[in-house]
């Protein structure tokens, strides 16, 4: 099995199969980041497609100073933000509508489990409520929560991907989670 750098070397030499292997390896992660940020399948598809196309066009500018994944996620974050700019009137076009004050189901679910939801499978309705709540966060908080709590990137990786300091990662995470907790009313 070839590692990322070997695949990139072959892709740079024009071997499309090598680039396809990179897409297959990372497509789920890239798509998932885009979906956590937009909560919309067609937008996530656009973003993820653009990400890999840009990666291909810019393969020669990847200097191997960081991991390929870090470089890839950085392009993904930029593409998520670019998608926001393109969106008319800056309104999120969701796969579902946001209704205010509909988070009671989350609270009662947690109460049903005596406050311990570890290892719980979330119902479709709860998933929807959480996604809606995440969409209400400001962009940077929505992104940091996506990268840390949904995609489980490390502090260091988030700092590189979002181009912020490690201390800022901690502060933004603290604010993002506090806000989300309040939106979810738990």
């Amino acid at each position: 099995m070839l590692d990322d750098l070997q695949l990139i070397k072959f892709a740079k030499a024009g071997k499309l199969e090598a680039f396809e292997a990179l897409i297959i390896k990372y497509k789920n992660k890239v798509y998932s980041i885009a979906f956590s940020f937009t909560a919309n399948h067609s937008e996530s598809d656009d973003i993820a497609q653009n990400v890999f196309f840009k990666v291909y066009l810019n393969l020669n500018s990847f200097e191997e100073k960081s991991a390929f994944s870090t470089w890839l996620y950085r392009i993904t974050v930029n593409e998520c933000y670019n998608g926001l700019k393109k969106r008319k009137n800056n309104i999120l076009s969701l796969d579902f509508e946001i209704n205010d004050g509909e988070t009671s189901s989350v609270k009662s679910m947690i109460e049903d489990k005596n406050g311990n939801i570890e290892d719980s499978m979330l119902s479709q309705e709860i998933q929807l409520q959480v996604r809606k709540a995440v969409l209400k966060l400001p962009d940077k908080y929505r992104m940091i929560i996506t990268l840390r709590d949904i995609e489980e990137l490390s502090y260091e990786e988030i700092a590189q991907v979002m181009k912020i300091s490690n201390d800022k990662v901690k502060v933004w995470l603290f604010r993002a989670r506090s806000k989300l907790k309040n939106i979810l009313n738990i």
Partner: protein
Amino acid sequence: MNCKKFKINMNANLDNSLCQHEKELLEKHLNHCAICAKEYAALKNTKMLLSALNKEQPKADFEKKIIDKIKSKSFSQNPLESFIAAARTSLIASVLIFGVIATFNFFMLSTYECSADNVEAINNYVLNENDFAKHNKISYAKIIEALLK
């Protein structure tokens, strides 16, 4: 230590990024401060909810769409190769343009030059014609006149 300081550490603890000492201090505080304990439980549940979300995946033809797009663009990915390809095209174009202009000039200017630069050749021709005139009893002046028409 006040509650505010513990709030930052609550989050850090959710990410397992506290040292043992800080972790013990936090646990001690949470055992004695109901407000912080409640907040910590809520933050922990928030994080749990997020990590329990379904991971959404792209459609099955995802990579095919990208590879097709790359193939359809059919660009040369090496900048040097692109430059050479561009230079080759320009060279062929300039040779063609040169050819057209040269051909055009050759035909247009050749009629011109007969009356200007190639005077000597005309003189030879005329002198020969002079002999021709003598034989055929046509005046030299008439031949010159006909040539200059």
